[in-house]
């Protein structure tokens, strides 16, 4: 099964995606990641206002089988978390790039964006 990798997003090696709008970044996990995790049953999100560094573990996604850390792709302050995931964690599986987003950051160091992977590079990384 080939995973959906939208070209307009940025990615990390640890399978988070980033949607950039000005100095705000929305973060979730990729279609490939949700497929590997299997059915998501719980998501633990960071508190709004928390300052996170790029690469810092700041959320946990729990599938039926396993718990996985989610790493902030960029440094910044958490300005919003997805309120839907508490009641509907399965959105991470069914709609990973929209309804299944995790949190939004106000970027502290926008230049870090250059370290993220483009869709082509990420697609190569997850190729079987």
């Amino acid at each position, binding site marked *: *099964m080939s995973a959906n990798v939208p070209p307009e997003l940025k990615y990390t090696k640890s399978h988070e995606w980033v949607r950039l709008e000005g100095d705000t970044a929305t973060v979730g996990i990729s279609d490939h990641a949700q*497929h590997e995790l*299997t059915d998501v049953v*719980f998501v*633990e999100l960071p508190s709004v206002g928390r300052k996170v560094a790029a690469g810092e573990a700041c959320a*946990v996604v729990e599938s*039926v*089988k396993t*718990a996985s850390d989610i790493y902030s792709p960029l440094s910044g302050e958490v300005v919003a978390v997805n309120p839907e995931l*508490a009641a509907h964690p399965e959105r991470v599986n069914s709609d990973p790039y929209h309804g299944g987003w995790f949190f939004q950051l106000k970027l502290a160091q926008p230049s870090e964006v250059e370290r993220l992977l483009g869709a082509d590079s990420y697609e190569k990384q997850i190729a079987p």
Partner: protein
Amino acid sequence: MLKRTPLYGAHQRLGAHLVEFGGWEMPLCYSGIIEEHLAVRGAAGLFDISHMGEISARGAGAVDFLNFVLTNDARALRAGQGQYTILCNERGGAVDDLYLYRVDEADYLMIVNASRIEADFAWLQSRLAAFPGGGAMELKNRSGELAAVAVQGPKVAGFIDQCFPASARTAAALRKNDMARFSFAGRAVLVSRTGYTGEDGFEIVADAEIIEALWDKLLEAGRGAGLKPAGLGARDTLRTEVCYPLYGHELDENTTPLEAGLGFFVALGKGDFMGRAVLAQQKAQGPARKLAAFTMAERSAPPRPGYSIWSAAGGAEPIGRVSSGTQSPSLGIGIGLGFVAAEFAHAKTAIGIEIRGRRVPARTVPRPIYRRVEKDFKAAQSA
């Protein structure tokens, strides 16, 4: 190199999500763990269990030997019957848990855990060498030549006999724990009314060469009833809901069947057997730790093996440890099994499960955690 079952090609064609399990490359799921779990609870699911081992014991001396090395009473089996039983060491610890079938008068078959095949066979051989009159039977590891599937769920009895049109008897007429020979593709296959899901169902042991044809025939026969191929993910959530032990989690060489709540399968009155002295003493005194089932009291991350269990009243030390835990697809909450100090093992004890540093409220519940009547109750409520 991971081992593969004769159904590996079938799994690939079905788009299975394959994972490593005890040295085997096995399907975790096909369409999704929750969907497959609910298919088994509501209709039917088909599992590859070819990784499990088959050890035969044949000969006039087999029953006496088996009765000495296993905890249940092998003499209680008629030809065509099976029983759950435990292979114990001298300390009463579990070498493995398994199903013993009396296939014919002096022909017994043990279905053992995949990860324990070599350990079991070596242990059985060493015990046989030391057993008085051990020459009157033959022990054989048939795991390589035999394969097996489990077809489980409330609708299975309605279609399974489509696989055996030439057989005079019907599999659907088998009683729980009974086993009989049926004919498939010109070969004898062993069908038993057993399983590991808490639902009605069957397990079929067949020659490795014909297992894929049988798998395909079952998928075809069950299609109209909603049969889905199901992987190890659903197998684990299903067995956890009904509190069936998984070797390595609820049982190991340092855990006795009495600690694991399996006293029903330990026939202390049958005469001497391996581990009996320790088990009889433990039964008399009561084990210091016992397996308890629990459900989370609030929406939370699922409990996982290894998490600490605390008394709700606090205390300086945990009272136990989670052995199995998951999100229950049937109940929609976190559930688990864990060993706790005996005074906390009775149902309705308020406990806390430590999840990433936080003690999340939970309570012990009677086993099984999930019962079929609850499903009927839910259905009646929503009707």
